[in-house]
């Protein structure tokens, strides 16, 4: 029993693969940026906000972290539809991914914020820095530097998990693959190609994050050690 590989029948579809790859990259990039900003704000609210806000954010984080991403994607998609609005699948995908990754970012960032010793904040206040300055320079900056590796893992995972949005037919890489394999009846080859494309994308994304980290975290660049 030998399987005859035939990758050549996929060749005519290279442009569709490329478009899917591009959309996956876009979905991930937008979700990462929004997820980081939203997650950071949630972490601040969770760590230092008023008690009611801490509870609200805490509940949100728990709900998201304890339900499947696929279900969240469907809830967003059909939720928008139930409001009688036209649903753009790509937009619904971004919203669902952001809602998801904000929760995870929040937890990671909170750990970073809580790792900053109270004495550091006291020292900054004693130097006359106001609350906002203290928070930015003495709490958030070292916190972000400290949890950066965990954030990178999370955002690579997000990029891979974006394949789930193929279920609401967002036109990203996996959705493209689903279509191509049903056109060509070359499912195995198609998913091998797609798997390799995700792998390559992961490497590129990790490399980009590494470069960005070296650019932003001077101390890491000079000492080569984690904060």
């Amino acid at each position, binding site marked *: 029993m030998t399987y005859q590989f035939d990758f050549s029948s996929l060749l005519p579809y290279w442009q569709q693969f490329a478009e899917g790859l591009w959309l996956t990259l876009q979905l991930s990039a937008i979700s990462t940026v929004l997820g980081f900003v939203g997650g950071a704000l949630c972490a601040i609210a969770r760590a230092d906000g008023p008690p009611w806000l801490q509870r609200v954010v805490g509940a949100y984080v728990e709900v998201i972290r304890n339900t499947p991403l696929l279900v969240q994607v469907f809830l967003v998609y059909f939720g928008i539809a139930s409001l009688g609005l036209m649903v753009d699948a790509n937009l619904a995908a971004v919203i669902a991914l952001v809602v998801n990754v904000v929760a995870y970012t929040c937890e990671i960032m909170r750990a970073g914020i809580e790792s900053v*010793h109270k*004495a*550091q904040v*006291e*020292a*900054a*206040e*004693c*130097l*006359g*820095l*106001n609350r906002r*300055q203290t928070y930015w*320079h*003495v709490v958030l*900056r*070292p916190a972000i*530097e400290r949890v950066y590796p965990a954030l990178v893992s999370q955002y690579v995972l997000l990029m891979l998990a974006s394949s789930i949005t193929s279920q609401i037919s967002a036109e990203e890489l996996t959705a493209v693959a689903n279509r191509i394999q049903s056109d060509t009846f070359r499912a195995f080859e198609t998913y091998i190609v797609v798997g390799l494309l995700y792998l390559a994308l992961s490497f590129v994304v990790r490399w980009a994050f590494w470069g960005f980290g070296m650019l932003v*975290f001077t*101390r890491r660049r*000079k*000492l080569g*050690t984690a*904060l």
Partner: protein
Amino acid sequence: MSVVVKLSNVHKSFGPLKVLDGVSFEVARGEVVAVIGQSGSGKSTALRCINALETIQQGSIEVCGHAVHDEKLDKRKLRLDVGIVFQSYNLFPHLTAEQNIMLAPTCVKALGKKAARDIARDCLARVGLSEKADHYPEQLSGGQQQRVAIARSLAMQPKVMLFDEVTSALDPQLTGEVLKVMEDLARGGMTMILVTHEMAFARKVASQVVYMNKGKVWETGPGSMLDAPTTPELRDFVGSGL
């Protein structure tokens, strides 16, 4: 001589625990006051009250014209006049020595990068660490970190400096280099209040020694007081070789 810091009948409790029980003392401009006493006698708490890191329940504290006990105190204005150095240095680990020092002048006094850097360089020179400007805290010894912390405080040109056991975490040699910096400061006319276990240093540098016991100022006087204590408690304390 004008009074820079004045505590009058200060009471402070943490819950049921009475830590300061009617503390009063005065510090004149240019004076160096050494606060000594057993562990738990309330020395750190007294220092923290002066800098409004703790609120007091009764009494009054005046620092450079600021009514520290007042609820309406502008803490940021107070802290422009008061510098504090802690036992644990508390340098910011993600910033170099120079950046640690530049942070407050740029944030608080809105100085430009260049002006702030000049100040940082100057302060580092004063603590003898010019060549360590670009080092990160973890690359410095404890004594060097503490001197950077002192320089960081100096950069804001405070009118009075508070030191809370700044050499307690250091071995004798490193202690020496930090004490030397403090002695230079004292000689330069800086008003200083220091909590210390370094009796020899207190005797030599302090113009006034405050011995605290059980939340009270038990005995106070010039450095020579340590050679002839009047209360048995201070006699025990000095005799115990601390």
